[in-house]
């Protein structure tokens, strides 16, 4: 029994990071209806910004750790806005496929520039936040797991607040609903789209920082595997739906962990994808997604 509880805790802690990345995918999709494949590489850049700012700040403390995380979130928000302005904005009137392929190009660009700038050897990530472990019965909980879960929940709450309660959030939803009508109502679409990219990229950076904090080996291709899983999580939860993405991430993390801990461990990915196919067969819009009539 304690083994099962332990596995659930392990799963939730990985799933929380998938959730953070998945929200970024879903946020951009919700507003622009396209998958930003460069998202997982912004995640990678986030952990490298954390790596360098952690070296500059040095030491292990809550204030320092939060500072490092804030630095990588701001850095990546700017990167996200820059990518949107340079690569996606000129293509806004083109077909979605053009933008999608550009996103794949940007992803490769970030990986290859990452190799040049950061080097390809895995780097040890500095300790930025203090870490201890707690023992409850036969279950061991690392403070790292609690930090990751806690941060994810806080960021999720903040995001829900921004999207549902603030003026910018209302504007975001308006743009998602109908860009032309929104712009007729006096909403600056360019600004709102930039803001969406900034927000999504900041979440990816937070995910990157927490990932590196938990698994302290970082390299330019580190975003590929978690990025793919998070994308699946976003689809699983119903792409475009923030709570759905978070739920999908946590669910996928737990399932992955339970399979890995069993004797079918080599089938982990296969089982995750079979599950995705099954869910999409019965709920084509994902767990929390709503089927929308196509606008003609």
């Amino acid at each position, binding site marked *: 029994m304690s083994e099962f509880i332990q596995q659930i805790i392990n799963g939730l802690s990985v799933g929380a990071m998938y959730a953070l990345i998945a929200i970024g995918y879903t946020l951009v999709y919700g507003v622009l209806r396209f998958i930003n494949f460069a998202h997982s590489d912004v995640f990678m850049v986030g952990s490298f910004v954390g790596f360098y700012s952690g070296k500059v700040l040095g030491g292990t403390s809550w204030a320092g750790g939060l500072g490092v995380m804030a630095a990588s979130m701001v850095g990546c928000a700017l990167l996200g806005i820059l990518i949107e302005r340079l*690569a996606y904005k000129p293509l806004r009137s083109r077909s979605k496929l053009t933008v999608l392929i550009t996103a794949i190009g940007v992803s490769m660009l970030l990986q*290859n*520039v990452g190799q040049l700038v950061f080097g390809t050897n895995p780097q040890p990530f500095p300790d930025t936040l203090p870490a201890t472990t707690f023992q409850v019965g036969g279950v061991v909980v690392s403070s790292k797991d609690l930090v990751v879960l806690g941060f994810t929940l806080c960021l999720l709450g903040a995001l829900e607040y921004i999207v549902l309660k603030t003026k910018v959030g209302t504007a975001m939803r308006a743009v998602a609903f109908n860009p032309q009508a929104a712009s007729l109502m006096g909403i600056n679409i360019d600004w709102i789209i930039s803001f969406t990219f900034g927000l999504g990229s900041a979440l990816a950076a937070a995910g990157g920082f927490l990932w590196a904090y938990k698994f302290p080996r970082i390299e330019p291709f580190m975003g590929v595997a978690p990025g793919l899983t998070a994308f699946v999580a976003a689809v699983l939860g119903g792409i475009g739906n923030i709570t759905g993405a978070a739920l999908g991430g946590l669910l996928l993390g737990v399932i992955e*962990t*339970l399979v890995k801990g069993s004797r079918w461990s080599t089938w982990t990915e296969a089982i995750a994808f079979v599950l995705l196919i099954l869910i999409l067969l019965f709920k084509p819009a994902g767990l929390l997604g709503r089927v929308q009539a196509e606008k003609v």
Partner: protein
Amino acid sequence: MSLPTAVHRRVFLGVAVAALLAVGCKPSGGGAGTGTEIPVGEFASLTGSEAAFGRSSHNGTVLAIEQLNAAGGVLGKQFKLITEDNQSKDGESATAVKKLISRDQVVAVLGEVASGRSLEAAPICQQYKVPQISPSSTNPKVTEMGDYIFRVCFVDPFQGTVMAKFAANTLKAKKVAVLTDVGAPYSVGLGTFFKERFVADGGTVVAEQKFTKDDKDFKAQLTAIKSAAPDAIFVPAYYGQVTLIVMQARELGITVPLFGGDGWEAPELLQGPGAAAALEGCYFSTHFSPDQDSPRAKEFVKAYEAKFGAKPDAMAALGYDSALLLSDAIKRAGSAEPEKIRPVLAATKDFDGVTGKMTLNAQRNAEKSAVIIGIKGGKFVYTETVNP
């Protein structure tokens, strides 16, 4: 389309193309042997996840070639080393070796450390009849690929036996767990040989868990291992993931020693906060230790330190030996033609390398002793030598 947007896009494309070109084109050695030079090919993981292996091995090879050339080369000709980087990626080694053979017309190929990547190159070397000498791939399948494939290190059945005996006799373990990387032939092979021997000697394997190359989270597997309560955990994997595995095991409250094979040996194993502390009391087997007490080894350690400013590890020593063996074979054959080198290489007997005297057996594998290294006080400490 407004002008600024078009300009933006052009700038963006320009940056993209420049970056891709910079990554895509690596300086490459050109041309065939000119008559005064003997071209020797090397493929190594100079960058990427096993870069520490590739760099060490490459440094050892470079040192050997320099020393050989300084001493007048062989048959009155100088060696010319042409190196290709496979970025530790699957699929790159085949391309690299094809290029070395067809464009650079090398007389022999040296490489690789990882068995999986040596296995990629071997069929090509065999097909073109160019001898390949792997410095440190220990999976038996590598030399089974054909009679042109050789190695200067021991094989995993021996390494597995050494570690099974070490677990039973020194660690006093009766129950062990095994955690392997299913994507790496090295890991799967060594894990199997270890298990067979350990069980044959009366021990039990209480848990077997698997992971893949991209995994960073091992807590699921380690939790399952923990509930099986082993006395020790055998992890035949590469250093990059080993550090994460051991750190996560300690986080989960697993206090028993973890131990593995030569895939552990890299300075990176102990790098990063908490890594050295987590690995304290763990052991691994390898081919060579700079603390070994042999005059040949001491001479090599001195020359290596003078050139690279660091102590050589086993990969460096084997990289060095692979180049020396090739030179020796060319000298004995009296020719640098690939097809004349092969039979002479196969007949190598009592060759005096820095990793010990070696004789190549009928399977073209070197028979020699293994070294066990322990991690104490954040350092690699020579523990014992095990003879075949």
